[in-house]
């Protein structure tokens, strides 16, 4: 039996993710890399790694769907679609009953209203880093701890303090004030997570908070933010095993749907000559 393969690549502001699936929607390979300062140049390398893991070549892939901030600059992508639609599709594949998905990535936060796996409405944070992964990175750096450790530290908190601002700069100042006043680190970190969760909860309120609520993106790896979000939304929050992959997986799945629809219409899929070149964001061809 001939198998068909699909790839989804999600070029986020902070992380680049790729997922390769077959026509049974099984994940054959996934790769997650820091996007880094070289930014979109990594796309081809991540793709090569994914292909190697799946023991496939680029010519085996029927359709490559790109998403994320860098989606329009992937030379080997057949189509681009926003991370909004891709996250919704990806999350629904993990949790079919999802009605609200929250994705907090490196530089923005999104709320997605989903019904029967389809995106109905969305809200996005503004261009400020407040309430995003970048906020946690800055605070962790100021505290001299690893961002990955923040969640565990906050769970030890007995009495979180109130952090009034989610402005990255002002919050940093508040943290220093609390610490110099002798507040334990875990209570300060729990306060920060609460401030972030409360900002997110306010943002998604317009979409109506109804279970299942699913939380994805890099920040969903932080157990402290998950807990704070549950408190602020007053409902359980589900997190997929690998919360970074929903965009790339959704892209691959939407790629598959696109191909099937085209085939049903009797069209052939013209993917053109696919070259694993570097992305061309900085150097115009």
């Amino acid at each position, binding site marked *: 039996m001939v198998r068909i393969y699909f790839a989804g690549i999600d070029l986020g502001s902070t992380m680049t993710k790729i997922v390769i699936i077959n026509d049974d929607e099984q994940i054959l390979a996934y790769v997650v890399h820091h996007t880094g300062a070289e930014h979109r140049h990594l796309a081809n390398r991540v793709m090569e790694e994914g292909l190697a893991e799946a023991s496939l070549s680029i010519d085996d892939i029927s359709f490559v769907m790109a998403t994320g901030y860098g989606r329009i600059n992937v030379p080997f992508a057949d189509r681009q*679609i926003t*991370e909004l*639609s891709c996250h919704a599709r990806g999350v629904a594949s993990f949790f079919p009953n999802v009605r609200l998905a929250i994705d907090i990535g490196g530089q923005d936060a999104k709320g997605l209203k989903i019904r029967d796996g389809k*995106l109905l409405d969305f809200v996005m944070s503004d*261009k400020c880093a407040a309430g995003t992964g970048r906020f946690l990175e800055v605070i962790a750096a100021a505290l001299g701890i690893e961002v990955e450790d923040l969640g565990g530290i906050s769970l030890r908190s007995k009495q979180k303090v109130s952090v009034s601002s989610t402005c990255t700069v002002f919050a940093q100042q508040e943290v220093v004030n609390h610490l110099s006043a002798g507040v334990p680190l875990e209570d300060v970190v729990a306060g920060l997570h609460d401030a972030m969760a409360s900002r997110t909860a306010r943002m998604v309120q317009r979409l109506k908070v109804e279970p299942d609520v699913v939380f994805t993106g890099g920040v969903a790896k932080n157990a402290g933010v998950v807990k704070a979000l549950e408190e602020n939304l007053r409902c359980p929050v589900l997190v997929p095993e690998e919360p970074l992959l929903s965009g790339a997986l959704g892209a691959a799945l939407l790629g598959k749907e696109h191909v099937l629809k085209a085939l049903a219409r009797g069209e052939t899929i013209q993917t053109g000559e696919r070259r694993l070149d570097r992305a061309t964001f900085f150097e115009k061809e």
Partner: protein
Amino acid sequence: MAEPSKGLLRAQEIYQDRSRRALELQKQGKKVVGYLCIYPVLEMMTALDIVPYRIFGDMREPITKADSYIPAVNCPFLRSCLDLGLKEKYSFLDGIVTTHICDVGSSLSGIWNYTVRTPFSFHIDTPHTLHETSLEQERGLLEDYQKALEDLTGQKMTKERLQEAVRVHNEQRALVRELYELKKQDPPLISGVETIRVIKAIQSIPVDEGNKLLREVIDEVKERNDGPQKKSARLLVWGSILDDTALPEMIEGLDANVVMDDTCVGSRAYFGDVELTNDPLDGLSHHYLVDIKCPRTFRTRDYTDVRKDYMTDLAVRFSYLRDYVRDWKADGVIMESVRYCDTHGYDVPGVRDYLDSVGIPSIYLEHDYTEGALAPLRTRVQGFLEIIE
């Protein structure tokens, strides 16, 4: 000598070099008077052969001087207008007419007088409600305005001259509506980007020249085969001022055509004629206060009738948008506003609730009135298009 350009090309030339024609006319002895917003009654300028020249900002020029006078937490469009004034981009104007657009707009007229010092200025304190007394007030204000313009030009604004001006401006309104009719086709015969160029052009030249330009554009567009491509979505754009093509360019760079708008560099000033009343000031005051549907005017008279029923109130205020959507076969509405525009911002929830109630999808975009800041909005617009697909 090269043949002067016509139609869309001419509109684009004026869009890119707006003051050229006004300066030529000024050299011939005509007065050029700048105006802010669409509420300064242009017919009264035309009646005295004044060239009305709309004041715009420039979203491609960083605001560097205006922040000393208007804090950055205010409308960036109005701050940009003042900034250009302070940078002497409007130093050629013989006068300026402002109205009480909003609080910032009203304050701007005073600040302009102190800082830019255009030789002649007049402020019309246009009421914000539709009570009978508001109409009386507007009419009285127009009488004062008339006297001020007569003093500026040394000419009498006779009833006949004003009636003729009303007629020519109504002709312009009809021509704009005729142009918008061509946007009903699929694909539309003229894009959202081209429409802004045309409207901005006619707001930079005398009305009779604007009418000639519109006629040329309509004739050209009707015959063209290089018009916009067919796209998956047809959109209506509602909102605050769009005096640059950047936003529609971004939208039309995606799989959508902007086929209708309700903005003030678009249809808003042209849908509905001024009634030719025996005393022209009656028709003019009614048109500018009642007929123009801009959120700067609270339509309280309507509200009083239905104040207990939110949805009926919304229908009274916004059902014209449903008609636009139906007639121009729009698939969705983009509500846009410059940041800190309270006037439009306060209407956004009502417009959204109304559109939701009649099943029209919408999205709200707030922007900083800078070209670069529009890029992040691309994902939102594309996401919206994916939803309504």
